[in-house]
């Protein structure tokens, strides 16, 4: 562990490599986290199946790539549409029936059930193996080979930024985005003013699923996925949202990049096998610290 720390201190270009990787991938995490922040803010529910939606998107890209020979990058729109429909279906069959509940844990339990169901279904359908859909686009070599960046990372960074920008513009300037924001501010008032709340909720949940799907197909191009890795993405998106706050677009991007870069560096120092442990522990610690700080002011976080 100390030797790895020494390596980092002695060779700054290595640190730079880790940080750049982290920043580029962080944009994808930010995309997934934005979806979570959206449904959390608008519908006041949290989705434990967030990571499973990501992995599902990844598997669709993988299947289209290997079964039908479609280039992975071109699968992204297909994945987005499929996941949008899937999110809509989940909303209409499950979430819709639970929205009026006083007990918020009921919806959490439902998404928890969906997460388990999706994990197991994906294992049954796609098998438990680790898969990837690397499009082999080559890499950029900078500073005499000291820093190497895969082209797909840059492309996925740009795609995430594009999707994020489009979403930002839609939310800010379109009538539909206005309806979503109005619902998140005060759903009763929005309903009185003639906004179809149910449609807004369904769309929000579906957009979240589509964002997760896009994130997933980018992830499967850069890294590998397997049916049970979804949980890590769920926790990452929670952490980013908790750090940035709801509805804070810039905050989510910076938190996403920061979390991802930190994770890369710490993962290098303590070993890749503890990277997941680091994410889980960091989440618990952040929450406990925030709770303790709120308690001093006689408040609580909820």
């Amino acid at each position, binding site marked *: 562990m100390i030797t790895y720390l020494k390596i980092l201190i002695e060779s700054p270009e290595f640190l730079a490599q880790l940080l750049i990787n982290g920043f580029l991938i962080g944009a994808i995490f930010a995309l997934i986290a934005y979806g979570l922040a959206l449904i*959390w803010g608008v519908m006041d529910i*949290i989705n*434990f199946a967030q990571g499973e939606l990501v992995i599902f998107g990844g598997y669709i890209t993988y299947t289209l790539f290997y079964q039908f020979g479609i280039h992975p990058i071109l699968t992204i729109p297909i994945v987005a549409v499929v996941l949008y429909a899937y999110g809509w279906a989940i909303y209409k069959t*499950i979430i819709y*029936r*639970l929205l009026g*509940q006083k*007990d*918020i*844990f*009921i919806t*959490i*339990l*439902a998404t*928890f*059930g*969906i*997460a*388990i*169901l*999706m*994990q*197991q*279904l994906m294992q*049954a359908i796609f098998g438990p193996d680790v898969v990837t859909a690397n499009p082999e686009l080559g890499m950029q070599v900078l500073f005499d080979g000291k820093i190497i960046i895969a082209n797909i990372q840059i492309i996925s960074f740009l795609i995430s930024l594009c999707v994020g920008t489009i979403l930002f513009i839609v939310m800010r300037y379109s009538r539909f985005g206005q309806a979503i924001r109005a619902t998140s501010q005060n759903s009763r008032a929005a309903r009185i003013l003639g906004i179809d709340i149910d449609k807004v909720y369904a769309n929000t949940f579906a957009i979240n699923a589509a964002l997760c799907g896009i994130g997933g197909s980018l992830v499967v191009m850069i890294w590998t996925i397997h049916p049970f890795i979804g*949980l890590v993405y769920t*926790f990452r998106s*929670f952490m980013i949202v*908790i750090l940035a706050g709801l509805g804070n677009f810039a905050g989510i991007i910076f938190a996403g990049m920061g979390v991802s870069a930190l994770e890369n560096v710490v993962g290098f120092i303590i070993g890749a*096998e*503890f990277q*997941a*442990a680091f994410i*889980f*522990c960091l*989440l*618990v610690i952040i*929450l*406990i610290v925030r*709770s*303790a700080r*709120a*308690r001093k002011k006689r408040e*609580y*976080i*909820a």
Partner: protein
Amino acid sequence: MTTKIKLNNLIWLGLPIIVVAPLLLPGYTTLMTYIWVMIVLALTWDMLGGQTGYTSFGNITFFGVGMYVCAVIQRDMFTSGIDRFERVSEIVVSLSASEYFISLGTGALAGGVVAVLLAVILGSGILGMRGHYFAICTLGLGHAAAEIASGIDYIGAGSGMVTPIYPEDVVLGKEIFYFYVFFLLALVTFVVFKKIYKSQFGLALNAIRDNENKAESMGIHTTQYKVAGWSISAFFLAIAGAGVGNVIGFIDPVEIAFAGPTFGVWMIVMAILGGKGTLWGPVVGACVLYLSKEVFWTYLLGWDKVALGLMIVVIVVYFPKGIFGWVEERKQFNKLIMSQKGDGQ
């Protein structure tokens, strides 16, 4: 009133049958042992999840902690400790009968105490949160515990540990011994929880579930009550974990000790299926779920976990009050009908 007496009679009839059950049905001893385990799991989850209204996804942490603490004490109590260069996962300690039972008892109690300490320390931080944050944090806790346990070499890291072999020169066989141990544990847990729910403490927990802000303004130190409740469930859960480690004979950090997808999910499903927030609900839910799992799920051939996920969703969406909640609703409905009939005459 009549139903109450009937139920009590049934229980008094049932107890002797249960006591001789392993002699009558020797082939089903392990199955029945696991039913007691499941009852303990469901009851302890319901203390916070049902009675206090805090759905915890991380109670499995205490289960695993109890299992590991007990296994380490069993390994190190009568031996000189582990060799630095030995592979921990391959150490099998053979103990004499008295050594085995002494170390098991000490280990289980120590596991309970450690779990209580952990619950107090973590609980005072985590139970200050409410709602979404609480759910996320507890889910993270269980997985963090699994990941940490698979990194510690002293407890065998990712390869796990082997619990001591049950001594051969004892009259009671291993299966029957653990059947009675878990029967007693389930009985004690049930009686203790029954007393708790009837006491002022139980009322305070219910008050927190119904309206935490009001409870707080009535002078109940809600966080302290929640921490106390969590500690009590952690104690029994850890003892159950200590026993389960010995029944299985092998501890794996992710698959057995901190097994979120199996024990961790089952305890939630059982409590909700039976009816959360009731005393008998978790017991009934545990029996129904585990028996149906043993009887039917073998036919599902690998799709059993899919069925589990589907079951959670279906129960939550269509049957959120559980079996006991449904019975209670029927009773009230009937009462209403009866009273209306009475008014009419």
